[in-house]
């Protein structure tokens, strides 16, 4: 039978605050175990949590960027369960009054746009980290991550393929990073994803039984896990069996999901309002103040770049992959007045070098001003496009200004016709047999002569002038 997959995703994003959600401990990743703990995040008796205002601001930013309705009254709830990653015996989260609901983001899929609904966004605290001893029956607990602020973003079951799922995640990730509220580091767990997937016969409206997938730490693994799980469920259904509603763990090295056994007992979290934390009331003024501080989002930027700079959608997509890259391109485009050239240099040489040296845009040795100066020097004929490649290399190595490099290395283009004429005469004289062949009709040799002139001038000859003079001389 032909099935249609139905996919919904839950994302946990760590917020980039300096301190934890309910205490002043640092949120910095990679510190010595338990060095960022205090009586509040250790859940000592008698302590009181106090909410970090930045957490609410950041969460509102994401809610606005994903077109959600923000609830004016927010209540904190205790989610009760026993596990050693949680020293209090409950996680402080939001339950029936989350921060925001009913939003969406837009995906561009092969030329068409599809909206993926956002069911809700709520704030909560992260749990600690357990390391299980491989030999002894013990686990080591590090509470540094306990109390790091999270937002949980729950999508509607609107995705119909693993590709759509991965695309949704990439777009959500991009928005979080653009807003500068999450560093998006999947390996360090700043951006985590669980997936719900079910199958139903094509054309059917009712959802099938779903499974929940966990433990995928990259976009690629989310897609792979979904692909595997869809095949597995299809096999189960085709055999006339029923899919069991359960949580399954993705195993990266095996490329499979398997059931988390021993968790059959249904969770009963007994949510109730946390008496230690008063409600958060979000006024319209506060929302508007935050709305005013939102940066241009990736999708808007992409559309503006296409319109304003006349670059193709693909280029606009590459150039807006990060805010730093987009800002760099835009500065070069404006300063040089040549957006297409700016886009070619940034997408080609600049990104190529950044990738090769594994550098972030922020670490780029070439400043936007220097690159636009270089484009200006090509435009006004000081250097040729070919020499510009060498100048660029030198700019990358030394971080010097293009003018300085051109002067130091004597790379200024030769545009003096009489000087070039002399060189051309020499070239023709030294290649008399080719000249003869050319005159007999071997037109292709024109390129050979241009090449020889370039060689003789170490690439500094202005190609346009060389062409003109050669045409004249050879047509005689």
């Amino acid at each position, binding site marked *: 039978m032909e099935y249609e997959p139905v996919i919904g995703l839950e994302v946990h994003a760590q917020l980039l605050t300096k301190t934890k959600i309910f205490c002043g401990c640092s949120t910095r990743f990679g510190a010595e175990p338990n060095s960022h703990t205090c009586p509040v995040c250790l859940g000592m008796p008698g302590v009181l949590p106090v909410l970090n205002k930045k957490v609410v601001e950041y969460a509102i930013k994401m809610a606005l960027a994903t077109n959600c309705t923000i609830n004016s009254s927010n209540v904190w709830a205790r989610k009760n369960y026993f596990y050693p990653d949680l020293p209090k015996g409950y996680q402080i989260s939001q339950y029936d009054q989350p921060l925001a609901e009913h939003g969406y983001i837009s995906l561009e899929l092969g030329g068409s746009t599809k909206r993926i609904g956002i069911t809700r966004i709520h704030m909560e605290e992260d749990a600690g980290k357990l390391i299980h001893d491989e030999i002894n029956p013990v686990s080591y*607990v590090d*509470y540094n991550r306990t109390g790091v602020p999270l937002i949980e973003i729950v999508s509607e079951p609107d995705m119909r393929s693993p590709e759509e799922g991965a695309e949704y995640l990439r777009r959500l990730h991009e928005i979080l990073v653009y807003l500068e509220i999450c560093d998006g580091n999947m390996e360090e767990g700043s951006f985590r994803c669980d997936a719900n997937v079910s199958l139903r016969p094509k054309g059917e409206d009712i959802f099938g039984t779903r499974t929940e997938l966990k433990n995928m730490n990259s976009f690629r693994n989310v897609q792979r896990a979904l692909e595997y799980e869809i095949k597995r469920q299809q096999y189960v259904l085709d055999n006339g069996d029923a899919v069991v509603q359960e949580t399954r763990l993705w195993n990266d090295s095996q490329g499979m999901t398997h059931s988390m056994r021993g968790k059959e007992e249904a969770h009963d979290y007994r949510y109730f309002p946390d008496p230690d934390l008063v409600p958060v009331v979000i006024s319209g003024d506060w929302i508007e103040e935050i709305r005013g501080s939102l940066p241009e989002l990736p999708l808007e930027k992409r559309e503006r770049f296409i319109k304003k700079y006349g670059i193709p959608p693909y280029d606009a997509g590459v150039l807006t992959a990060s805010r730093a890259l987009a800002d760099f391109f835009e500065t070069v485009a404006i300063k040089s007045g040549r957006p297409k050239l700016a886009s070619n240099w940034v997408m080609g040489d600049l990104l190529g070098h950044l990738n090769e040296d594994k550098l972030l845009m922020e670490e780029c040795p070439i400043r936007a001003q220097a690159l636009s100066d270089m484009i200006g020097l090509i435009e006004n004929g000081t250097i040729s496009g070919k020499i510009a490649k060498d100048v660029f290399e030198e700019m990358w190595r030394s971080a010097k200004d293009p003018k300085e490099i051109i002067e130091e290395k004597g790379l200024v283009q030769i545009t003096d016709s009489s000087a070039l004429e002399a060189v051309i005469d020499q070239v023709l004289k030294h290649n008399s047999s080719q000249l003869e062949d050319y005159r007999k009709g071997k037109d292709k040799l024109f390129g050979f002569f241009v090449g020889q002139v370039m060689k003789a001038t170490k690439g500094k000859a202005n190609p346009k002038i060389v062409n003109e003079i050669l045409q004249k001389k050879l047509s005689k």
Partner: protein
Amino acid sequence: MKITKDEIAYVAHLARLDFTESEYEKFTSQLNDILLYMDILNKVDTKGLEPMSHATPLHNAFRDDVEMKSLPVEASLANAPDDNGDSFIVPKVIE
């Protein structure tokens, strides 16, 4: 009865509590009384009133995102039944 002994046993299990037979009886009867009292409260007319999550009208108690000193690791671990100098040690529970 508003509540059964099975329900008490379920809640006790969720809270990791172990009761004797006489305790079960005692708590079942006590919780029953509490729930009966709730029935009386339920008779109050609350039409047009927003449910409250807290007894006070306070809201928006915030702190600024300013780092404070954490405890020295030795102090954090001081009351732990077992530790290895930087981490708490617990029996292995793989979820």
